[in-house]
């Protein structure tokens, strides 16, 4: 997994653990946590494959834009790999 990642903007219904306030936001992988059973399957009593889970660090500026209380404060969250895509510098432009 590359260092910079973006959380998908997908908004499916159902039990997902990628919080809405981080969707579409770009962060940096703080650490890889290993593979964990996919909660989107477990929640419905379905067989669940183990998916890579990452701790991703976001700046307040990235998450809240101009409304950020302090731009360089951060939020770390655990996000499953299927919600993340690698980001290159070029794609970073708005």
């Amino acid at each position, binding site marked *: 997994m590359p260092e910079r990642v973006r959380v998908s903007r997908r908004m499916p*219904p159902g*039990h997902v653990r990628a919080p*809405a306030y*981080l969707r579409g936001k770009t962060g940096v992988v703080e650490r890889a946590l290993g593979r964990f059973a996919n909660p989107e399957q477990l*929640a419905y*009593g379905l067989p669940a494959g183990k998916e890579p889970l990452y701790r991703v660090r976001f700046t307040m500026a990235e998450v809240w834009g101009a409304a950020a209380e302090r731009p360089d404060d951060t939020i770390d969250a655990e996000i499953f790999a299927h919600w993340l895509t690698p980001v290159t510098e070029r794609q970073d432009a708005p």
Partner: protein
Amino acid sequence: MSEFDGHRWHDMGGREAGAIDLAQHDYALWEKRVDALMVLASEKGHFTVDGLRRALEDMGEQAFETMSYYERWIAAVNQNLLEAGVYTIEELGRRMEEVQARGATYGEAAEKRDA
């Protein structure tokens, strides 16, 4: 027309909200029992914590606003146990009726008459 954009009620990060309420309450015995049933039945493989969260989320915001924490948890535990086939709705309904008939308070109703 619905203005819902897919952002569900329980997904609270960043939303407007009031002041933090620092009041604290002790747990009652029935609440501790709900907690124990949740831990034991999930350790024994009858549901996952994800299944409980899914049930809590699907109960909706009204339940969050009007029911206490362990009221919601027993509802979610029951939902998952029914789905897992541990007991049937009929068994539950009959037993709840029987429990209610034992007395007007928790102390009375928690006494098992047939024991």
